[in-house]
């Protein structure tokens, strides 16, 4: 294996560097904290001639994604990035991109939504966009951001998939944290990611019509076709991750298992909280507590079968969401995990722990408290609450 450069990059820089190596034809974006660094770096790369791409500074996120849709329909490798209110403004076009089956890759530096105005991290933005038909990949650190940005283009453009991908990292916690990132050489990226071969590009020589009316006599057939493609993409995503692992000596999976041997209770995490939670698991294990952790990387499509397999045999699971789905059972991940397990004969108790809202720091101590609660639930074999918010002062919450 050739020597690879380890660069000091924060999460946003890691995304930008990976995108540069993926050689997109078109980048259309609008800067928004905490994604700004990505857009700044990419516009520098283009201005300095290091990246030969059409860089469109759009006047809004809605326009940015619209431009991406047009470019991708033409057959271009297309990239954008956003966060929070920006993603919200894109909302209607998100459905168009996925329904057109356009392999756009979009980085999201996860940030809370107003109000109160908050520039800090949580996952209200992408979790709110979970039903838009995009693949969603969540990353723990800058290394994963780098590696999965590259893989996202492969996944999106694979002819068995042809779906847009949101590749997400926690705002500030990852986007603005500098770490050592082992980068691949340009030729390694080239060999893993060949140029895009579009299936039905807009082409005057071979005209096609995209975006016509779908009357009730056809709409369900077209949508079910999309649903089948989305579900089937899980298998392709696994294959692509395996190929990446084998090519570059990584060890990724759509659900990562940590200290699960002999575990009776487990934390199910997503994104950067996973790292802090692993340190808590180590502390609990050092005290002889049977605690493990599962990190979910792929939230859309949800790997339902894999989740069932991974969680079976446990007594209690604590699901760490980083947002609240108001008026239901905590966060979306908690609700979906519970739904996935419902028909299992032997299933663990599942409790939700929405944590780290609007940039509230999540600490090892929080996870210790959560695992202690899970051990109590396992011991008594009863669950009294569907969820409890973590990192919030006042009754009914685990604070501060």
């Amino acid at each position: 294996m050739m020597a690879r450069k380890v660069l000091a990059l924060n999460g946003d820089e890691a995304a930008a560097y990976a995108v540069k190596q993926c050689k997109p034809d078109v980048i259309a974006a609008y800067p928004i904290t905490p994604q700004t660094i990505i857009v700044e770096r990419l516009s520098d790369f283009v201005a300095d001639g290091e990246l030969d791409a059409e860089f469109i500074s759009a006047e809004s996120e809605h326009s940015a994604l619209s431009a991406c849709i047009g470019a991708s329909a033409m057959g271009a490798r297309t990239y954008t990035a956003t966060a929070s209110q920006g993603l919200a403004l894109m909302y209607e076009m998100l459905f168009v991109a996925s329904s057109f089956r356009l392999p756009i890759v979009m980085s999201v530096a996860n940030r809370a939504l107003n109000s109160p105005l908050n520039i800090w991290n949580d996952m209200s933005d992408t979790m709110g966009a979970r039903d838009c038909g995009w693949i969603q990949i969540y990353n723990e650190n800058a290394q994963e951001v780098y590696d999965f940005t590259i893989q996202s283009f492969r996944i999106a453009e694979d002819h068995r998939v042809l779906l847009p991908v949101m590749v997400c990292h926690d705002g500030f916690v990852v986007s603005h944290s500098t770490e050592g990132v082992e980068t691949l050489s340009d030729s390694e990226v080239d060999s893993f990611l060949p140029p895009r071969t579009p299936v039905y590009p807009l082409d005057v020589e071979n005209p096609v019509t995209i975006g016509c009316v779908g009357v009730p006599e056809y709409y369900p057939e077209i949508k079910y076709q999309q649903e089948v493609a989305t579900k089937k993409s899980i298998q392709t995503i696994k294959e692509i991750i395996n190929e990446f692992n084998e090519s570059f000596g990584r060890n990724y999976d759509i659900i990562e298992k940590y200290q699960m041997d002999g575990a009776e209770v487990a934390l199910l995490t997503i994104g950067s909280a996973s790292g802090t939670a692993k340190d808590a698991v180590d502390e609990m294990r050092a005290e002889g507590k049977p605690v493990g952790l599962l990190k979910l990387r792929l939230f859309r499509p949800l790997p339902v079968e894999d989740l069932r397999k991974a969680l079976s045999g446990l007594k209690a699971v604590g699901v760490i969401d980083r947002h609240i789905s108001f008026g239901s059972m905590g966060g979306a991940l908690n609700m979906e995990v519970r739904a996935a397990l419902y028909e299992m004969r032997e299933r663990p108790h599942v409790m939700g722990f929405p944590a780290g809202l609007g940039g509230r720091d999540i600490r090892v101590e929080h996870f210790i408290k959560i695992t202690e609660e899970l051990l109590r639930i396992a011991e008594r074999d009863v669950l009294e609450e569907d969820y409890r918010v973590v990192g919030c002062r006042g009754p009914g919450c685990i604070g501060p």
Partner: protein
Amino acid sequence: MKTWEEVPFAGYILEPGNAESYRTGDWRSRQKPVINQEKCTFCLLCWIYCPDGAITRRESKVEIDYYHCKGCGICAYECPSGAIRMKSEAEEA
């Protein structure tokens, strides 16, 4: 009708120009345009204005394609020479 496996990819229309096979003329229920060729100066405004492309040019003559004309009357309204008259379909029937 086609199943989800048979409908084209993402509902794209892969066959160019197939709108022609869609007989929008069937929607015409009240009135239809009729051209008085004697008054017509071949200015082609009707040809430009017709939202359905239902006016065809043939050498120095414009003709209505009743398979696609929806009977909106725009051509008659725009014709500067008063060469197009909207005739009631009932008159015809």
